[in-house]
């Protein structure tokens, strides 16, 4: 039992924290957010130069071979600066997915080639690969004769992808994973900003040419691999949330110490002190669960893994809501303005609660899995 991070891990987080503090200021972020693309290639290259894009890729493919703990430390450090670039989608989920789906069959040359081609590019920041998984209601993506049809909804960072990995229902009723080039014929991509200032896309496939990249869905292997990769992403998302909540609480505490009303700092008032104490309780419980998520997100025991991750997402989702809402409340009118980072943290925390399954969904899944266990 040891809750300390080692020196190498601390150094990694420090590096990212310094980068955010120096090169990802509020003004810089605002300029990136308001740009046409909504993200910055220059920043992406800087992240590649720092080595963080290679973090979750094995050494054999040009990566550093780290795990969820390190991904969490990096995401936590991004939190305060609200990175707009597609780190979670492109540098956490995509490598995990490629490793899991395309390496199922030893000696599979096509799969091997796919990994050889894409993982080093991701590590070097030369390619962004994004998973498009959630179907739009009633228009699930299906595959027939190597072509995809259907619609994917609110694909995070779908618009900046060099390659989309699209899950689709195959003729045999299983799930397949298909590589699709966004510019290909039959792909219509609608890229738009989301609540948190990031980007997402709805993508319509109309007999779009696709290359199958998974090793077949025997015993739901592909479905499981996608879920496993998303769980690694969820653990990283939890760490990001903790980073944001910590920054939010620090900023709100400072505000309470400086804002004067009735001739004293408002932090002297017990009603506000107790609200802050409640926020801190949520933060510490959330931090504990982000550690649990990092520890369990790579577990082979699917039930135990999903149960832990649902527990983590419930705790963190509730903390996101509570801390975000009360931080705005305690800032009074200032909390409502676009000019403070606070409102941007608020919006990202709101988005996190609604991503990867909301609190209600995970609470019910946890109840179901606990009863089955």
């Amino acid at each position: 039992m040891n809750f300390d991070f080692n020196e190498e891990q601390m150094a990694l987080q420090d590096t990212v924290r310094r980068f955010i503090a120096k090169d990802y200021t509020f003004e810089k972020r605002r300029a990136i957010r308001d740009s046409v693309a909504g993200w910055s290639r220059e920043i992406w290259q800087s992240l590649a130069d720092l080595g963080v894009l290679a973090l979750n890729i094995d050494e054999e493919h040009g990566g550093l071979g780290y795990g969820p703990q390190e991904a969490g430390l990096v995401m936590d450090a991004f939190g305060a600066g609200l990175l707009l670039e597609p780190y979670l989608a492109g540098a956490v989920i995509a490598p995990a997915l490629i490793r899991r789906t395309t390496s199922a069959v030893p000696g599979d040359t096509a799969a091997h080639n796919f990994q050889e081609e894409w993982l080093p590019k991701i590590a070097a920041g030369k390619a962004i690969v994004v998973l498009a998984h959630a179907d739009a209601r009633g228009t699930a993506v299906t595959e027939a004769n190597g072509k995809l049809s259907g619609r994917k909804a609110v694909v995070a960072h779908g618009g900046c992808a060099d390659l989309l990995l699209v899950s689709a229902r195959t003729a045999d009723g299983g799930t397949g994973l298909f590589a699709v080039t966004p510019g290909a014929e039959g792909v219509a991509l609608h890229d738009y900003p989301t609540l948190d200032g990031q980007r997402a896309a709805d993508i319509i496939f109309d007999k779009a040419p696709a290359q199958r990249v998974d090793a077949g869905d025997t015993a739901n292997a592909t479905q499981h691999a996608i879920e496993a990769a998303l769980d690694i992403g969820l653990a990283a998302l939890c760490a990001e949330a903790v980073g944001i909540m910590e920054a939010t609480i620090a900023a709100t505490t400072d505000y309470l110490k400086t804002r004067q009303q009735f001739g004293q700092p408002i932090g002297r008032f017990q009603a506000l002190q107790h609200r802050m104490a409640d926020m801190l309780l949520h933060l510490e419980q959330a931090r504990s669960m982000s550690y649990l998520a990092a520890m369990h997100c790579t577990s082979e025991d699917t039930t135990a893994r999903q149960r832990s991750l649902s527990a983590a997402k419930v705790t963190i989702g509730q903390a996101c809501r509570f801390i975000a809402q009360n931080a705005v409340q305690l800032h009074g009118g200032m909390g409502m303005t676009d000019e403070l980072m606070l409102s941007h943290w608020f919006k990202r925390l709101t988005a996190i609660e609604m991503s990867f399954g909301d609190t209600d969904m995970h609470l019910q899944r946890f109840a179901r899995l606990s009863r089955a266990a």
Partner: protein
Amino acid sequence: MDLQFSPEENAFREEVRRFVAEQLPAPIRDKVMNGVHLNRDEHVQWQRILHQRGWGGPGWPKEFGGPGWMPAEQYIFEEECAAGGAPRLISFGLKMIAPVLMAFGSPEQQQRYLPKILAAEEWWCQGYSEPGAGSDLASVKTRAVKEGDHYIVNGQKTWTTLGQYADWIFCLVRTDPEAKKQSGISFLLIDMKSPGVTVRPIITLDGAHEVNEVWLEDVRVPVENLIGEENKGWTYAKFLLGHERTNIAGIGIAKRELARLKRIAEAEGRLDDPLFAARVAQVEIDLIALEITNLRVLSAERTKKAPGPEASILKIKGTEIQQAIAELMMQAVGPYALPFRQEDVGPDYAANLATGYCNQRKLSIFGGSNEIQKNIISQMILGL
């Protein structure tokens, strides 16, 4: 970072589990498992069994007859005891006055009192609260006036838990009424058999006799029963409160009670109701998170001497969780929660659920109310 216990710690857990399974008398286990209050003899019996094994003072260092365990071992021990249906250790002697004696008592006091605490030969109770001194503890009014080699003590203590069983009471008394609040307090050990000590029961809303009023009228207390220095009692009192909170999260007990909740809910078919199932899931999730938070605090304590303000987080969340479990258990049986103290009505497990719920309301009040804990968090952690 590694959330796993070490192989040695897991082996120790096995050892404790086996010991509890083999040595805990079945009638005591049955009472604990069903939330029934234990009597003095039952508490003493279990304490003596532990003492024989050398485990009588889980938090005690070896020099005073304890096992000298690390925080993780104490945690495992308490968790396994709770899971196995062992009584909660009576903390007034073992966890409150004992650490004070070890830190501030004279060698004579240590030799006089500590062995009898370990062997359950003397039962202690806490004389802190008074009618006018609850959260504002430093406003205690009980007076102690020195006359020769005795203090003459007059006043009233209240909420004295299990004082009806006690041989001794440790008291905060005012020795200097002129000094500022905190600086005129001394820490006295008083024999409950002394003339002038009267214990009167307070019956709580669950119909139980757990707490008392203790009246002190011209009680003569030998000066050698003073802890440390006169008028320095507040320092010792605060030290004690710090120790009182080390296991305040009550993870082991909450786990045991959660298992009981699930058994009852399953028997009542309530887990088929998605709303009720979600409520149970919520408390289970909160408990998972709190267990990790607790272990984080324990881990941090290895490098610090006394528990810091983080213990307040554990106290608030731990008591909220235990109260939520008690509430859900009561709700699970529906109308059969209503018969009051009727053993022979409704399902066996229903008899004491409402009284248990009522009793557990105390958790967020005692040991520094949860509101006081929030004051501590906002002031000590957040600096407000």
